[in-house]
């Protein structure tokens, strides 16, 4: 035998050379290599700054009307042009972005909370509880939610809170299924037995041990839910059921733009472009995260 201490069988390395990497470190490394994902993240940061800090830098407010400048294309005074009431489109787009992003994040948060809790509990307890809970999900899945949401908003008035709740309520179903799947595959692992043996109660196990281990899937799905929810809000606003004027959201701005696109195409193009770019970046980032955390899927 050679005299190298602690030789790893068959190679020249010693144990010091073989450094382990955690799942997160691996994922982070892979994510950084994905240039488009990094670019998307950068784009999102820029977009965020644009909508949050932008309005402070603008000489106009989003409701300020200046009818003398009504309905003009882009110019030096108004970089995105103006709408028919003479409102500066740039600042309105920034405001619209605030609302759209806010709605997206909040509704995703609602959906996450409900979905994770529901799925984790269902998966953990299993048996009849699980069967019943999943039956409910199955039935809810089939209901044409958008129709119900639309009806709700029309019949009961268009409040922003209702909007959040409705949007969040629509997307928690898939999150619940995903979390349930993860919990089921994790709940027989050893660390769960260890936790149980040290006296941790059911809820503690679910929320302090199982859920954190499912965090990967949760993060990925949440990142992909944000653009979906933003799209739904834009959709509802487009129909006139979401955000109400004079406030703006990107969906509302696109609706206005579509109505006047024959002679004011800039009203459609600018908000449309920003909305699409943001959704694209979010989707790309979500995909990148998924590839980074589960490389098996890629090749």
């Amino acid at each position: 035998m050679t005299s190298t201490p602690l030789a790893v069988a068959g190679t020249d390395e010693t144990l010091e050379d073989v450094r382990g990497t955690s799942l997160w470190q691996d994922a982070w490394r892979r994510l950084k290599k994905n240039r488009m994902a990094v670019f998307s993240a950068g784009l999102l940061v820029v977009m965020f700054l644009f909508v949050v800090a932008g309005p402070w830098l603008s000489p106009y407010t989003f409701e300020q009307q200046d009818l003398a400048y009504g309905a003009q294309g882009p110019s030096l005074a108004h970089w995105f042009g103006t709408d028919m009431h003479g409102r500066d489109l740039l600042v309105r787009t920034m405001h619209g972005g605030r609302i759209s992003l806010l709605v997206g994040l909040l509704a995703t948060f609602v959906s996450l909370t409900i979905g994770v809790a529901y799925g984790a509990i269902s998966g953990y307890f299993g048996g009849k509880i699980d069967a019943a809970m999943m039956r409910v999900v199955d039935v809810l899945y089939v209901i044409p939610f958008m129709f119900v949401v639309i009806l709700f908003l029309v019949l009961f008035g268009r409040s922003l809170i209702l909007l959040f709740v409705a949007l969040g309520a629509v997307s928690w179903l898939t999150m619940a299924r995903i979390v349930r799947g993860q919990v089921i595959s994790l709940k027989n692992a050893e660390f769960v037995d260890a936790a149980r043996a040290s006296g941790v109660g059911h809820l503690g196990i679910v929320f302090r041990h199982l859920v954190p281990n499912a965090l990967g899937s949760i993060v990925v799905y949440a990142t992909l839910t944000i653009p979906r929810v933003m799209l739904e809000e834009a959709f509802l606003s487009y129909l006139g059921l979401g955000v109400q004027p004079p406030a703006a959201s990107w969906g509302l701005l696109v609706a206005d733009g579509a109505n006047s696109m024959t002679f004011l195409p800039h009203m459609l193009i600018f908000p449309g472009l920003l909305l699409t770019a943001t959704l694209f970046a979010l989707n790309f980032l979500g995909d990148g995260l998924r590839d980074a955390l589960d490389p098996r899927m890629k090749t």
Partner: protein
Amino acid sequence: MSEPLLSVRNLHVHYPTEDGVSKAVDGVSFDVPRGRTLAVVGESGSGKSQTMYGMLGLVPQPPGRVFGDGAIFEGEDLLRMSEARRRELRGDRVAMIFQDPMTALNPFLTVERQLTEVLQAHKGLSRKAARAESLEMLRRVGIPDPEGRIDQYPHQFSGGMRQRVMIAMALLCRPALLVADEPTTALDPTIQAQILELLKAMQRELGSSTILITHDLGVVAGTADFVAVMYAGRVVERGTVEEIFAQPRHPYTKGLLASVPRLDAGQKEQLVPIPGQPPDPSRLPSGCPFRARCPEATDRCAAAYPERRVLSEGREVACWAA
């Protein structure tokens, strides 16, 4: 001795990985004489299957890379011919059967479809004629009631029957060379013997040669004429079955034989497994890759890979200590 049916020289199969180049096959040479069986033996990861895939053009390039001095089969070099020509030979002159018939057969197609397409592609037969031939072959490999079963799907067969279907599929065009990659590993021991007998019988009937990949020395003893022992992507010892079993020269071969129960061993003799693990093909050590596990290793073994020494016709060993 007449020309070998297949003569492989210095074959390499490399894959790029995050850690460098993984040398799955690192310079392999062997011959397959006509009408005989060559057993290729080694642990999993030794490169046995990759050698066959590389030789037959089943390694996707990119990302893999297959190169070598030559793989002469019936006068043509498999490594230098066009992919179209290789495709003509695959399934027709050279056929392969795989380890797990459950995954190796297409679950979405009937057995009939998977059999007839071979004859249609290589012999230009009509569907009807191909079906008739397939039925006959199923009968020959021992499938009862072929007419009733040929239109069924693979999952409706038992493991042993599925393997017979694979063998039938491989032999339809009467190949000159059959490559059997661990054909019995996934089967029950009782079925294993039957399948091996079937392979031997078919080989006799067709006058073909067989390359039998296995890690089971018992199988080697019963079926092979020649043996090539592989480790870490290279052939470390070659010879006839008698030579290898009676006088193994390479410490790895000796270790393999010592770890297998033998009928002629005494009661008191212990089975001695080889300690350690085979090396990672992307991180091969300098010198002989077996030295970390070798009871006969010397300093020379760390310095350089052992040269291949020809002891006699077809008898080689690559070891400083042998």
